[in-house]
């Protein structure tokens, strides 16, 4: 019986069926659920690592130790893990090593749109690319085999639409894969220059063999149809192209690096016009052009964003979808917002009031950039807030540091904020770093991390003490504060940015969506008392709306966090049903 599975869930199932034993990851949309689903299998050891570099190193260690091992990350996570990746390509593996990387064309939840295939090529690591949930599972099993057969780490590349679409999957049994014996082999596993020079030769020879394999494997295959149009495609783009072109001929690539040159030539010889349909970079297209095969791709289709069948029909076949209505209404955008009750709201309200420059970071709190809080100035990558605040101080002088704070979440701080903080202390900076400690990794959907005190399986573990950690690296001024205590928070921030030494403020309050967080129930506004000064609206709470004639609370959204009562000078907020409610 087939089951409906998210692409990410099917990956986890594939990892299970392939007999893998170790999985380590750092959460990142759209890859997070892979590891969450793996954690449901007790046969596999799973964990959240502090960041993707550590996760990959754990997986490499497990592979060298003889187990089938895996780690999952989003595309930008691979940048963090690039260091171990590039050299793991040299060492090769013992047990199969599969790395799942989920790209995010269209940037649903990301800071850039990079294409993992380019990094894989630079690292000389093969890449498989599934196009639906069934292939997610099947390709995962195949990836472990290829990894072991060719003694190489391998990447399975997903995109958001594959990772987050559910499709039918036929389940199989778990293979019993015994631990391979470990044998000390410095020539293979110690990458000093003398050894690495020899291993680089192995890498190049391996790529040639993989190219041969790519020509032979059923992962890459031709679906002959009408020979007028030939389409070379892979991943989700295959599905869009199938809808757009119907009975054209297809060369469907499941292995996108190294590319099957012989097969591509065979296909090209059999069709009149060849289109390459691929989201993001012209990876397949460039390779075909280099081979001297005249394909069309990015001249017609965009480098940016997601594709769909209509787009392909319009750009290639000249068929534009008809508009079925006369509605020309301007529709206001609906950007994401901090949830009602979100602890971050208090902090950004204060930072805006103090008119500080805020170097920001990656997480729900990046939403502090948007109106009306509008307090964040920068967001580049995980941990960047800390280093950037320091860089701004060194460029603009100490006075600038008195008007600047770095803002970073608890999980992001552990991921790569600590090293930046050490840099500030060591290099005599005076920056203030605010750690938003909401007791969870929020944006990716509530994963535990080293500051929460629980493992991926929810088992209690040693909790990182942020205060002691910051003190240990040499920050003497560490203060803990409730971001909903606006008065104290304002005072603390003012004092810390003024201090002529590094400081850390830990704004501590749990995420409003955590189950154990209870509020007092919805509020409403007493119109007699409300003067419509709209101070409360500066909080950017989606539950407080201006109806033109009056300001009101949307009872379906309000949780009763009471932050608005702290900015209202007229005591106009009251609890629905009275305070006993």
């Amino acid at each position: 019986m087939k089951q409906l599975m998210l692409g990410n869930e099917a990956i986890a199932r594939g990892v299970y069926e392939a007999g893998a034993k170790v999985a380590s990851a750092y959460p990142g949309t759209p890859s997070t659920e892979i590891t969450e689903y793996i954690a449901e299998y007790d046969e596999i050891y799973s964990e959240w690592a502090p960041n993707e570099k550590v996760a990959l190193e754990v997986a490499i260690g497990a592979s060298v130790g003889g187990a089938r091992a895996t780690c999952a990350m989003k595309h930008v996570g691979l940048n963090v893990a690039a260091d171990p990746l590039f050299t793991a390509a040299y060492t090769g593996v013992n047990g199969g090593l599969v790395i799942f990387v989920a790209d995010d064309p269209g940037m649903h939840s990301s800071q850039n749109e990079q294409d993992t295939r380019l990094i894989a090529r630079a690292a000389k690591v093969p890449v498989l690319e599934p196009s639906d949930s069934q292939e997610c599972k099947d390709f995962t099993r195949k990836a472990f085999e290829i990894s072991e057969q060719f003694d190489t780490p391998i990447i399975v590349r997903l995109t958001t639409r594959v990772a987050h679409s559910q499709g039918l999957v036929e389940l199989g049994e778990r293979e019993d894969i015994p631990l391979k014996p470990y044998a000390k082999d410095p020539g293979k596993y110690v990458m000093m220059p003398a050894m690495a020079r020899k291993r680089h030769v192995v890498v190049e020879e391996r790529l040639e063999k993989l190219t041969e394999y790519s020509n032979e494997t059923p992962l890459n295959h031709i679906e002959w149809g009408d020979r007028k149009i030939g389409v070379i495609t892979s991943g989700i783009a295959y599905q869009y192209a199938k809808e757009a072109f119907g009975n054209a001929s297809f060369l469907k690539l499941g292995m996108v690096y190294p590319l099957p040159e012989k097969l591509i030539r065979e296909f090209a010889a059999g069709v009149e016009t060849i289109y390459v349909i691929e989201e993001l970079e012209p990876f397949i297209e460039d390779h075909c052009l280099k081979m001297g095969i005249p394909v069309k791709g990015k001249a017609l289709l965009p480098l940016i964003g997601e594709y769909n069948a209509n787009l392909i029909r319009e750009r290639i076949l000249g068929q534009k979808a008809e508009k079925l209505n006369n509605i020309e209404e301007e529709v206001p955008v609906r950007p994401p917002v901090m949830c009602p009750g979100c602890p971050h709201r208090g902090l950004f309200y204060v930072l805006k009031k103090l008119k500080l420059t805020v170097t920001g970071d990656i997480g729900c709190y990046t939403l502090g950039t948007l109106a009306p809080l509008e307090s964040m100035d920068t967001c580049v990558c995980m941990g960047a807030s800390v280093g950037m605040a320091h860089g701004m101080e060194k460029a603009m002088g100490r006075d600038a540091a008195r008007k600047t704070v770095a803002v970073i979440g608890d999980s992001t701080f552990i991921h790569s904020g600590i090293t930046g903080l050490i840099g500030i202390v060591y290099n005599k900076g005076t920056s203030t770093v605010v750690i938003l400690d909401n007791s969870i990794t929020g944006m990716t959907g509530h994963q535990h991390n080293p500051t929460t005190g629980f493992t991926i399986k929810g088992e209690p573990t040693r909790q990182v003490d942020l205060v002691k950690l910051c003190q240990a690296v040499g920050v003497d001024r560490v203060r803990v504060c409730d971001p909903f205590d606006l008065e104290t928070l304002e005072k603390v921030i003012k004092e810390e940015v003024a201090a002529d030494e590094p400081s850390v403020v830990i704004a501590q309050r749990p995420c409003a969506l955590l189950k154990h967080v209870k509020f007092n129930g919805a509020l409403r506004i007493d119109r007699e008392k409300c003067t419509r000064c709209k101070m409360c609206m500066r909080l950017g709470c989606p539950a407080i709306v201006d109806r033109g004639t009056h300001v009101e609370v949307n009872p379906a959204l309000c949780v009763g966090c009471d932050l608005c009562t702290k900015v209202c000078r007229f005591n106009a907020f009251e609890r629905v049903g009275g305070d006993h409610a």
Partner: protein
Amino acid sequence: MRSTSIMIVGVGGQGTLLTSRILGTVGISTGTDVKVSEVHGMSQRGGSVVTYVKMGDKVHSPIIEKGEADILLCFEELEALRWIDYAKKDASIIINTQRIDPMPVITGKAKYPENIVEKIKADYPNVVTVPALELAEACGSIKAVNVVMIGVLAKRTDIAEETWLDAIRKTVKPQFVDLNIEAFKKGYSL
């Protein structure tokens, strides 16, 4: 080839993910190919969210495109307007008459469009409005808005009521089954 394309649009946090899970479960039991596509992450924080459910003999693309949806299930009026181009001319358009102001409206930078339902009705013959929030409240939880909406939708498909009830039993937590079945029936009776 019989196929059905259902699009669910709403605001992050309204429970559209559970809706798609129930629809997916129904899809499997109809014995056809099914794909459900949703986006997780940042948009779930109060942003505009859209989920696609496609059933048919063979489903390739998991997304529904402009002019393709047989059913447009709208959890909020403005979102109905945003995605209306995706409906077929004769699509069943089901609109929860709930209004959630997006931040540009809250901050006064944009206006919430007036008479959304009337505008849609002018161009599409099959529009149903549902006071889902009130109906859900009457069942005991405003969180049941999504299942009320599924009830309304279910009535407009040729899939048996029992198939839907089964899917709800399989999908929601045991302690919420009764509440959700009541919510479903409220929607189904409309």
